[in-house]
């Protein structure tokens, strides 16, 4: 018999509705599992025990009174510690934020999930300032990969990936500026959705790079990802970067699967800068989705450079006052990188922003012919904690900067992407990006669902005990 942690959100909903399990029982089991696993994983920076039990009691009261349970009722989740949670300090992975006042209200996304009955278990570890791809945090420790605890979980939403992979919660929220949902999803072997830029409200989240920051869910199956994504859509007048787009429900469309989807593989830059495991995974998925061609995304490398410049400049400016006043409190792995970014000439930054527009104009016509583009999410599988370089295409590359080299051009475009995990010959997972046109999250979720139906994508939990 499956435990609650192994059920999908929809199955859990049925179990709750039928009285097989109570929300308080789900919350208590979740909190026990976190207590058992987190000393090894280090996925959580804070466990919101009282809030979770209180939210669970409300769900049980609603059920007892005969009320209709909302879709996410009783579903355990956790959020990257850059989203505001009422009464808690938002750290953004940085000890210099630890003395900030507590949040007066939940982030917009967290309040949406709370209103849908989801149970918040806590806040999750990340790279400091969300500037990194490994979650090796000098102040809050490294987050370990549940698939192999000697390896990194990826970053910057490393705690978010590890908590899902270990089966502690059904879903988590992460943020993705240059790949921070897709990279840890790839390395920890789960699914992650980076929606279209401007789709999900960012109100109540600690900004890093306003021009590139996205929020999105991470989960173990396409259906769970879709339900959470649907729950987080909606108009937030407070978010100036949110586009004026109507909500597009995705859950009911999943079963359309790959029917009618025109799929191509991204070659060139994306097939050059990855190892054989990634190439094999691309071949399998291309076959399963009946990809018809390999196509190029010209200037992808230049897009990566431009994304890097925008990130460095906006991220550096964000932290400049504190770099001046309390440099000793910064993460040593990124302090001078941030400061260098704060010194970038304006001409470089504006050129990168204008090139972004040109790159969009050049790439969008590809979607006249294709609905889904396939590319690896990371150049390779998870590296050992502390490993400084990865060898790709005969070149030694710095691990911390290079794990995101295949995701950066895509978030620079702002396109929606689901990263799906495949098992490699080594036993470690690697993620593939299923990239869709703007506002068509439904297409990449359908492709992910189709791969699950074929048995190519199947995420099991990797429980970790102390």
């Amino acid at each position, binding site marked *: 018999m499956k435990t609650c942690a192994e059920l999908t959100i929809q199955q859990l909903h049925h179990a709750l509705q039928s009285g097989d399990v109570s929300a308080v029982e789900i919350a208590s089991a979740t909190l026990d599992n976190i207590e058992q696993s987190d000393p090894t994983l280090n996925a959580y920076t804070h466990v919101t025990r009282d809030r979770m039990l209180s939210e669970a009691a409300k769900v049980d009261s609603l059920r007892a009174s005969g009320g209709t349970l909302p879709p996410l009722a009783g579903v355990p989740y956790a959020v990257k510690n850059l989203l505001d949670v009422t009464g808690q300090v938002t750290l953004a992975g940085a000890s210099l934020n630890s003395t900030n006042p507590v949040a007066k209200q939940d982030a917009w996304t967290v309040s949406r999930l709370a209103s849908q009955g989801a149970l918040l278990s806590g806040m999750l570890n990340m790279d400091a300032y969300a500037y990194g791809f490994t979650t090796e945090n000098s102040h809050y420790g490294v987050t370990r990969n549940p698939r192999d605890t000697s390896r990194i979980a990826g970053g910057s939403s490393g705690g978010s990936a590890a908590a899902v992979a270990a089966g502690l919660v059904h879903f988590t929220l992460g943020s993705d500026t240059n790949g921070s949902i897709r990279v840890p999803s790839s390395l920890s072997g789960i699914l992650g959705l980076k929606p279209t830029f401007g789709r999900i409200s960012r109100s109540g989240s600690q900004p890093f790079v306003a021009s590139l920051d996205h929020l999105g869910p991470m989960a173990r199956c396409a259906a769970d990802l879709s339900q959470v994504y649907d729950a987080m859509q909606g108009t937030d007048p407070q978010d100036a*970067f*949110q586009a004026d787009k109507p909500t597009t429900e995705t859950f009911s469309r999943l079963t359309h699967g790959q029917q009618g989807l025109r799929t191509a593989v991204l070659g060139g830059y994306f097939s050059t800068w990855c190892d054989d495991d990634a190439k094999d995974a691309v071949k399998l998925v291309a076959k399963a989705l009946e990809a018809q061609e390999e196509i190029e995304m010209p200037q992808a490398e230049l897009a990566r450079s431009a994304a890097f410049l925008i990130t460095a400049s906006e991220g550096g400016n964000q932290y400049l006052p504190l*770099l001046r006043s309390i440099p000793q409190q910064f993460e040593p792995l990124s302090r*001078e990188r941030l400061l260098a970014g704060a010194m970038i000439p304006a001409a470089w930054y*504006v050129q990168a922003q204008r090139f*972004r*527009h040109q790159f969009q104009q050049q790439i969008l016509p590809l979607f006249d012919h294709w609905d889904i583009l396939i590319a690896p999410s990371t150049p390779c599988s998870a590296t050992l904690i502390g490993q400084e370089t990865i060898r790709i295409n005969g070149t030694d590359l710095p691990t911390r900067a290079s794990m995101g080299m295949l995701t950066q051009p895509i978030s620079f475009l702002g396109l929606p992407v689901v990263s799906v995990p495949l098992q490699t010959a080594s036993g470690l997972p690697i993620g593939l990006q299923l990239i869709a046109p703007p506002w068509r999250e439904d297409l990449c979720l359908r492709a992910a669902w189709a791969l699950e139906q074929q048995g190519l994508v199947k995420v099991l939990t990797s429980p970790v005990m102390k």
Partner: protein
Amino acid sequence: MSETKKNTASTNWAAYIAQMESVLALELDDARRQELLAQFSRIAQMAQPLMDLPLDPRLEIAGVYRA
């Protein structure tokens, strides 16, 4: 060799960083200046091909997608 490439290669980034240290009112020691120079030189290398790229004079910065 393009103009920008020549400029980037020949630029004295240590002097630029010293200027910016003053403009931004920072207090750095030699070890930090050294690391900053390494980081900045890497960024400059990435910027160079982008700055070499001709852009349409009417091209504005990107916003969010509307269509």
